[in-house]
């Protein structure tokens, strides 16, 4: 089985799906001849032509509005927003148009687009190449939000996202774009949306993470194990739909939960997970749900090591939750 990194897995997924379904088109800034600033679409225009792999002018609202029109007409567009930090000019199209089309038209006009976008910090990207805006979209009914942590899931989840009847925002963990490598099957396979992965079984505490922070969570769990703490790690993979059953089953077993995300804490998805856990697992809880997150500040340039919720801070939260 070939070994790929996340970018290669994304590229492979797009190629597999474009070969299978002529309705799949790719559009975005620099995605064509150049193959994308991260090379995720490399070679696609050469294989599928400029009609299906479209270099657009530089306007995110235009990319998503155009993708929406394509989807209404029956295509399966995969739009790339070069960095998640630049998705905001398209916010109106995503939140007011794409997310609401099916509902507001009484089911007459579904709008199944996939929006791929690299997100997250740890690459010395400062304010505008580091953000994790997933919570903004999770607050919008009608959207699905998917965040793979490694190459196998990246390919399988992206194929599911493109085939999904609803719009999906597909956040790609650019910090581990090249670092996360693993075996990826050739051809097509689907990782279903809405199924979390228990990547490490444990009994004393449930550690919940997704995307790039899952790697930090695994590291923290390993270090905790050395201290004799038995941590279960959940990689959510898909935040909407959310695998609430996997979360509640795990927390009811362990009685403790720590949620990790790199977005700011206030109204981050950790707040929602914390509320869901206390609503559903109240009588099982031995300690408050802890959140290890980015801070309520803009994403920093120089202080990004301090800002990111990496393994050392996660480990401290694990210890504190265990000794509560």
């Amino acid at each position, binding site marked *: 089985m070939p070994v790929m990194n996340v970018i290669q897995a994304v590229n492979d997924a797009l190629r597999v799906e474009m070969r299978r379904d002529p309705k799949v088109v790719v559009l975005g800034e620099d995605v064509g001849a150049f193959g994308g600033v991260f090379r995720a679409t490399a070679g696609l225009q050469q294989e599928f032509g400029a009609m299906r792999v479209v270099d657009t002018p530089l306007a995110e609202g235009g990319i998503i509005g155009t993708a929406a*029109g*394509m989807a209404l007409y029956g*295509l399966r567009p995969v739009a790339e927003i070069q960095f998640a930090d630049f998705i905001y*000019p398209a916010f109106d199209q995503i939140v*007011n148009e794409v997310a609401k089309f099916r*509902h507001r038209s*009484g089911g007459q006009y*579904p709008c199944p687009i996939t929006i791929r976008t690299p997100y997250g910090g740890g690459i010395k990207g400062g304010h505008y190449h580091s953000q994790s805006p997933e919570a903004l979209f999770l607050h919008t009914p009608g959207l699905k939000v998917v965040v793979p942590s490694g190459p196998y899931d990246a390919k399988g989840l992206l194929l599911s996202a493109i085939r999904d009847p609803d719009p999906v925002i597909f956040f790609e963990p650019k910090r581990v774009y090249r670092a996360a490598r693993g075996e990826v099957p050739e051809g097509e396979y689907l990782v279903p949306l809405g199924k979390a992965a228990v990547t490490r079984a444990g009994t004393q505490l449930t550690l919940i993470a997704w995307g790039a922070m899952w790697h930090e969570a695994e590291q923290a769990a390993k270090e905790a194990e050395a201290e004799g703490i038995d941590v279960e790690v959940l990689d959510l993979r898909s935040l909407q739909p959310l695998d*609430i059953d996997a979360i509640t089953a795990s927390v009811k077993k362990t009685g403790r939960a720590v949620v990790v995300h790199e977005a700011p804490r206030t109204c981050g998805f950790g707040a929602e997970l914390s509320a869901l856990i206390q609503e559903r697992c109240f009588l099982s809880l031995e300690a408050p749900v802890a959140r290890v997150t980015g801070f309520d500040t803009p994403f920093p340039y120089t202080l990004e090591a301090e800002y990111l919720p990496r393994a050392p801070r996660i480990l401290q939260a694990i210890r504190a939750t265990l000794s509560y």
Partner: protein
Amino acid sequence: MKHARATKPPVRADAGTAREWSPGRFLEEFPLYRVVDEEGRLLEGAELEIGEAELLALYRWMVLGRALDERMVTLQRQGRIGFYIGAIGEEATVFGAVAALQPQDWIFPSYREHGAAFMRGLPLTTFMANLFGNAGDIVQGRQMPCHETWAPGHFVSISSPIATQVTQAVGAAWAARIQGDDMVPIAFFGDGSTSAHDFHTGLNFAAVMKVPVIFACRNNGWAISTPSASQTISETMAQKAIGYGMRGERVDGNDLVAVWTATRRARQRAAAGEGPTLLELVTYRMEGHSTSDDPRAYRPAEVVEPWKRKDPIKRVQKLLTARGLLDEAGDAALRDEVRLQIQVALKEAEAFPPKAPVESLFEDVYAEPGWAQREQLAELKAAMAADPRVANPRHIEG
């Protein structure tokens, strides 16, 4: 092509090469295209390309549109519907443009083009059920009145945000091009929309991607209380096309025949691979923005006066009369017929149950409801069962 880039752009070393703004220049470059004058007479040298039967049919549509708008405003004043937004005085821009398209062409509406949906087969009863937001509404009362959708006639769902449909029309045009379909979408929007980013982005994308699409700007002079002169200092909306590298045309939007002919030409060009066109349909909003504003608060009544003489319906009426296609008795019969049609539809629309069931709130959010929708529906039903006030609108409306 008129605006193609010169292969060898001239270079000058002297100062003062900047283009000066010269008042009136663009009014000359974009003269108002008109076929029929305000007295219903063909302009000298003009030919009537539209067939007489079609002209008569369009006259009936315009009369229907006007009568419907007037009746629905009254309905709102009576408190029977919550809101209405019509197109009084702008009928020619809607019916003329849509009549010039092919049935397979998609319509990306703003929110005044209900007439376009009627021409594409949306029953009046179904439209009115949308105004009541009742169980007969095919979008199940999910949106405000006048936000209808009619997929059987390729009339795309309406949203309130301004100009968002412009880029969407570009995407649909691209999709049709990829699939080899003879489909030219039209995006309707107002003069206020020309300030919005989706207008600029959409026109730029369309020109760069060379897609077959028609941009129909209904320049009715007003965006709620803001006159178009405060929207842009461009002398025309049509000239904006030049900046994007596409064809622009300024059309008398109160001349049904001019709108029809200009739209038909734009469609022919688009279908022939000659790219998009921006049509500025110059018209006037004779009433308020919607039933929610009173225009007396922001514009003196006398500014509307000159436009009364330019009424698009009277103009076609005179044309038809002069050509012997309509007489007073025929016109009166037509108007009675239209009034009856509205009356019957209204009666049918009001007969539906007042609300779709609460399940409809949780449907169509996703193709299949998720656990959150299922749980919240159960929660709401339990709350309703425990206390009927939960479902009583009086507790919202006061």
